């Protein structure tokens, strides 16, 4: 059983707290992704799990055993680094077999495991090449091969795709997912790219400034963010944050974003929001995908409005339109044939069944 548990884990560098007390339970065979902006503490946390950083406070357990004082070599983990960290003077075969060689594994066993891993990663023809003869993507696969061969309790990935170009990154993402399906090992994966997080993870851990903002499946995080940070971090283009007021009129709640524009609050949320009517510092969170062009048939909780468009960005399969409400720039996604044009007013439809109301003074989603 290779579950990983973090209890009140703290990391201090001199006076600065890089990780400020996090609790996390990772189940066996789970693929969990730590995601967040630079400096949020995700890499530090990963390195503490690996044993490359000392733990200033709290406990980390792997497979039920506390590993705070256990050196990396005895934790039965494998790590894939951002810069691959392949031994330049060894060829691919030797790089992959290094860990087993140190454990005095018999040669035929080493050979079997290396060949097997090479097959999974499709690098069998590269076995006698040196790292400097390989491309970035190939090196990354060798780094993964080195990890797979060890057959550890936990795989740790430290931003492995950051050094690859965009196209290769998409390719490798799929590779990693395929490998996880074949080699079902607990995986902790760190990235700053929320797309990677969403596509790869069983569960996503969003971190910010040394704390965990939210843990949940990609869908949970997308549809039910708990804080403004998570709401703005997940999803691309990012969610629109429009300052607003809650008005009560004739028993119904409306969200007013400007003198001329207000949206009706969906009925199922009225009870939840009524308590906050009249509060200051409220923000309407609405994803660009929920601001689209109008269609013949209008659904409940949708509201049409006309507004002049500032900038149009054609993306091929859709067009992004940018407009301003009371000084806030808002983004919407429309069909490329909907006739959006810069500096012309356009009729848009907002779908409020997916709205979020955020209290900006606490950052929490209401």
């Amino acid at each position, binding site marked *: 059983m290779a*579950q990983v*548990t973090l209890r009140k884990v703290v990391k201090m560098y001199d006076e600065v707290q890089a990780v400020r007390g996090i609790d996390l*339970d990772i189940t066996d065979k789970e693929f969990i992704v730590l995601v967040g902006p630079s400096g949020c503490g995700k890499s530090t946390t990963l390195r503490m799990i690996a044993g490359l950083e*000392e733990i200033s406070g709290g*406990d980390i357990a792997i497979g039920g055993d*506390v*590993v705070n*004082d256990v*050196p990396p070599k*005895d934790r039965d983990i494998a790590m894939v680094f951002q810069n691959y960290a392949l031994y330049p003077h060894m060829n691919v075969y030797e790089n992959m077999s290094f860990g087993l060689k140190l454990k005095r594994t018999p040669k035929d066993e080493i050979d079997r495991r290396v060949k097997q891993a090479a097959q999974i990663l499709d690098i069998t023809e590269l076995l006698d090449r040196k790292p400097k003869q390989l491309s970035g993507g190939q090196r990354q696969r060798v780094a993964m091969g080195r990890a797979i061969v060890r057959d550890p309790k936990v795989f740790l990935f430290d931003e492995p795709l950051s050094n690859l170009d965009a196209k290769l990154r998409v390719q490798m993402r799929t590779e990693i997912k395929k490998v996880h399906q074949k080699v079902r090992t607990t995986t902790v994966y760190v990235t700053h790219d929320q797309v990677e997080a969403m596509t790869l993870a069983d569960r996503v851990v969003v971190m910010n400034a040394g704390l965990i903002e939210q843990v949940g499946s990609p869908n949970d995080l997308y549809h039910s963010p708990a804080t403004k940070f998570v709401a703005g971090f997940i999803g691309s283009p990012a969610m629109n944050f429009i300052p607003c007021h809650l008005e009560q009129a004739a028993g119904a709640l409306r969200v007013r974003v400007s003198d001329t524009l207000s949206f009706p609050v969906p009925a199922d949320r009225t009870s939840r929001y009524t308590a906050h009517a009249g509060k200051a510092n409220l923000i309407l969170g609405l994803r660009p995908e929920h601001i689209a062009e109008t269609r013949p048939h209008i659904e409940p909780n949708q509201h049409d409005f006309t507004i002049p468009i500032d900038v149009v960005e054609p993306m091929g399969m859709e067009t992004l339109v940018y407009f301003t409400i009371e000084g806030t720039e808002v983004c919407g996604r429309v069909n490329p044939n909907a006739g959006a044009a810069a500096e012309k007013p356009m009729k848009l439809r907002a779908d409020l069944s997916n709205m979020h109301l955020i209290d900006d003074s606490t950052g929490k989603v209401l």
Partner: protein
Amino acid sequence: MANATIASPTATTISGRRYGSMSRDRKWALRWSYFFLVLFAIFFLTPPIYMFITSLKTSAEISAESNPWWVYSPTLANYIELLTQNQYLTFFRNSAIVAVLTVLITMAISVIAAFALARMKFWGSATLATGVFLTYLIPETLLFIPLFKMFAWVNETFGIQLMNHWWTLIILYPTLTVPFCTWIMIGYFASIPKELDEAALIDGATWTQTLTKIFIPVALPGIIAATIFCFTVAWAQFLYPLAFTTSTTELVLPVGIVTTLIKGDVFNWGQIMTGALLGAAPPLIIYAFLMDYYIAGLTAGATKG
């Protein structure tokens, strides 16, 4: 998401082995490091320290049976004697002049040669660069004999007596310093991006101005490192002066101390050590103030190859 509570850290074992704290291991590694560093520091610093100790002793104390590692009645007599004695000062002066002039000549030759070799292509430049390196590998101990004879020939043919003058050394020392200084500076100059020159030219500078106003300031660390190295080598030279200068007025410091202060079988150790310490002082002082350049010069030689 619930999990069993984690057992206390100290009691847990993994595969039957106990583990100490990782930070405690690191502390011990640090303590051992310092321990050995102190031992090595003692090894490396004992001779100079002993030189200093001896320089403060009277002749009587030196020949006594007492603890040689301690000074019981310190005295500055040795220093005073040496520094008021004309001979030692002559040695010092000769060394200083020779070293400074060598530095000037060497840097003049090396800087422009390195510049040409690093940034300009001309016929034979690659061969010359390799040749420079090979020259550094030809030791002075190979050349001093033919040079000895060559100087004798110059004397016979032109009547110029090159032997036994301290300024002859100024001709000889550059053979030792120029190759390595050129080599260091080729490395430094080559690492300065060409775009710098091009930008200066577009801004309207002639190439002399580019050299003096842009290039040399940027290359200054390399130039300083080469200068320090050149001075140190010139100051420490022993073989050439030993072979080519004999009268006491022409000697430089290293030779002077070794030959004159050891009169026959009588070694005046107090003065010898004082003389040696003072002789080692200029390089040490430069080192103390410009240590980083010194070290940069050393590592540049082999790594910037």
